[in-house]
């Protein structure tokens, strides 16, 4: 049986991404993820939520960011939804040499990090309304969860 997902909705205020981050961390721990994986998820969720706040909802405090988390068959599934229209164009790959030479903005690291920290990410996931990022993190060996948590 699929479990009912956990939902969190946040106002679009920078700093609030920390709430979603801690929520996701605590969910992942509950499901048996090890500390290093939990840290990866924390950074990924924080970056996706900051993007939803800044780019998706343009820091309009009245717009919500919705985070949905579910655990199913050894996989943690997570959605970050904003009320925007998604990516206007494919973001440029960050290049540290160019950043240090001031030939590229020092920003633009969020997407890069998310891609490397989770097992799968879709930056343009289907959603009824607005825009969503979907990520997936697999529990290694699929052991812990069902054994430790009934």
């Amino acid at each position, binding site marked *: 049986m699929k479990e009912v997902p956990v939902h969190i909705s946040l106002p679009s205020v*920078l*700093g609030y991404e*920390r709430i979603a981050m801690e929520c996701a961390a605590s969910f992942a721990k509950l499901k048996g993820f090890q500390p290093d994986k939990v*840290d990866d998820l924390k950074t990924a969720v924080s970056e996706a939520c900051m993007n939803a706040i800044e780019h998706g909802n343009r820091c309009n405090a009245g717009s919500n960011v919705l985070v949905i988390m579910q655990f199913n068959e050894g996989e943690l599934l997570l959605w970050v939804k904003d009320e925007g229209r998604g990516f206007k164009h494919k973001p440029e790959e960050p290049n*540290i040499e160019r950043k240090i030479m001031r030939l590229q903005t*020092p920003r633009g*690291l969020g997407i890069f990090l998310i891609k490397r920290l989770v097992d799968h990410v879709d930056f343009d996931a289907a959603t009824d309304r607005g825009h969503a990022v979907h990520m997936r993190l697999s529990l290694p060996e699929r052991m812990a969860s069902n054994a430790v948590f009934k």
Partner: protein
Amino acid sequence: MGNENQIVIERHGTVTLLDIKGDVTSASESFFSQAYANPDASGARGLVLNFSEGAYINSGGIAVLIQLLAKTNKTKQKVGITGLSDHFKKIFKMVGITRFATIYDSVSEAISAL
């Protein structure tokens, strides 16, 4: 963004320690640039940036660090980084920060190496 830093500046001969208290986010920008504006920092041969244990560091904070490294790269100052958890060591390597700064396990190690 939601946090304040306190950056304590400490000279150790030709090396200067910037002891960064608190989380590092885009809100840290003015704290970093003010700290670097101090002659003890901008004039040092080497800089050690010590992050606090358990600090939250996000991509906005890394961007602030990159801006600092753009300056130290121009002046050819050596930079050491300490106080990072294994997770943020990994993140700093991923992003390529470690091509412009060296991660050390302790402040004293960093100071004597620079």
